[in-house]
């Protein structure tokens, strides 16, 4: 193994400022995967058909796996001895940095599929690019998760098409999901200060370069699904800077319950 390019070796050459930026960013990616993975895991045992129960659990497992790698790496970047579980279980909602989209409740299967589809495209094109990041930590995690994200995008794209071009009821439901969730798509591409600085330093891509790829994919899938891409929708944002919807607090209450009720124990 080329020691120069292991994550740990690379960290030694980073300035403290860069480490903070990378920590912030890695944490944001981890929070995003965790919250979406958690949401999907709520479906387990309640899916519309056994095969889709399995598929959603699979995606949730991939996301939680990605979460763990990201938190572990974030903990290393921070260098204060926190663990993946400290980062997941002992931070308040306002400290979470996930975009609003992923914390939205599951709703019906159409809502879940739409939330997933909007996210999967972003995730796919981001990871595709992040694999080439000069930071070996992010590049390594991205390379592993990219394969999984390709499968997720295939799954959600196929379901968008099935539901859009299925029955009248499925069309009505997926259109409703679209009108509920589209307003959260803009935040995915709106860069925070941290993201802007990392993009400037070429550690991560400019999201303005990802967005057209994402839009092209959305347009292609929507055309096949006989859905219209919404126009002139006001975009909600805030999650990436800690201003969440009310849903996140409840989610974290459940997620963090045991760690909060019995502080400091091993499980």
């Amino acid at each position, binding site marked *: 193994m080329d020691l120069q390019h292991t994550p740990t070796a690379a960290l030694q050459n980073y300035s403290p400022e860069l480490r903070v930026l990378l920590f912030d960013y890695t944490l944001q990616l981890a929070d995003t995967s*965790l919250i979406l993975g*958690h949401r999907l*895991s*709520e479906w*387990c*045992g*309640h*899916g*519309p*058909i*056994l*095969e*889709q*129960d*399995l598929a959603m*659990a*699979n995606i*949730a*497992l991939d996301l*939680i*796996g990605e*979460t*763990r790698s990201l*938190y572990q790496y974030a903990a290393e970047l921070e260098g204060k001895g926190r663990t*993946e*579980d400290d980062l*997941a*279980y002992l931070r308040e909602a306002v400290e979470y940095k996930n975009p609003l989209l992923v914390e939205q409740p599951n709703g*019906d*299967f159409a809502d879940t599929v739409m939330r997933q589809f909007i996210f999967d495209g972003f995730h796919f094109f981001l990871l595709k690019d992040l694999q080439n990041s000069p930071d070996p930590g992010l590049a390594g995690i991205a390379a592993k998760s990219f394969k999984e994200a390709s499968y997720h995008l295939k799954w959600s794209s196929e379901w968008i*098409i*099935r*539901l859009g*071009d*299925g*029955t009248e*009821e*499925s069309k009505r*439901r997926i259109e409703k999901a679209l009108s509920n969730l589209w307003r959260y798509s803009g935040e995915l591409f709106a860069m925070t200060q941290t993201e802007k600085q990392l993009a400037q330093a070429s550690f991560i891509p400019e999201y303005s370069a990802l967005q057209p790829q994402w839009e092209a994919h959305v347009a292609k899938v929507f055309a096949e699904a006989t859905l219209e891409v919404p126009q002139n929708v006001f975009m909600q944002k805030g999650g990436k800077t800690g201003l969440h919807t009310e849903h996140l607090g409840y989610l974290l209450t*459940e*997620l963090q*319950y*045991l*760690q909060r009720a*019995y502080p400091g*124990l*091993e*499980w």
Partner: protein
Amino acid sequence: METIIDKSLEELFEEKIANEIRIEPKDWMPEQYRKTLVRQISQHAHSEIVGMLPEGNWITRAPSLKRKAILLSKVQDEAGHGLYLYSAAETLGTSRDQMIADLHSGKAKYSSIFNYPTLSWADIGAIGWLVDGAAIMNQVPLIRTSYGPYARAMVRVCKEESFHQRQGFEIMMTLCNGAPAQKKMAQEAFNRWWWPTLMMFGPKDSESPNTEQSMRWKIKRFTNDELRQRFVDMMVPQAEFLGLTVPDKDLTWNEAKNGYDFGDVDWEEFWNVVKGNGPCNKDRLSTRVKAHEEGAWVREAALAHAQKRAQREAEKQA
């Protein structure tokens, strides 16, 4: 000269059973054999699916990311087991839809153990350790069961179940070596799950109407009481290792039989839960029915879309 043709189908079937030759879907089989298998395999599949619920409860509350991933993957395995068991049962000529309809109408049963609630994180450990332990005891002999597709499905199921059991034991061990509050949690879960787990082996042999025929057809290889005894003998030392007290004042080592004597299962409770009066029977079933009903439009959409697609393909060909 005796030829194969002279033998009746039934004789051929009996000969295969006697010679430990697997019965396969296209083979002739007595109607009662088919019925017994559909009942048993579908009951087993339903148990996997309903069994996702008590543990699924704790996926969102698992105490660490590692535990969360392990639990989610375990519950997902159960969905997978349900899938191959339904497929095995379908080889006998009953559709998955029919089996699910029978579950929802209350005609088909599932393991009563899943009608008990999971009240603390330790229940997840106790279920893995005890319930999966009992399931393995019941299921390992099924790898040699006479019906081929069922036996083959069980090879994979048992492999995964034994992995689950180790994980359950590991949760219990972590709790028992942890803080007093965790040890207490573990003992309470053990107290709650011990007796219902012993009930998983089914009624006493003297009251099990299906056992004799199932043993003769080699669908079943051991009686309920034999398996229950083995389970107790296996689990008591493990409980001692964990430092947990078995909630049975009659438990004593019997040197003569080289096994434990243990107290009587509360059969009244057992039959009550079977009849639908367990703490969670209504909830479990209504949760399954709800998921199925709310998923109807999704299944219809998938079907409608597949038909549209096929039609377009056909038009293109024409």
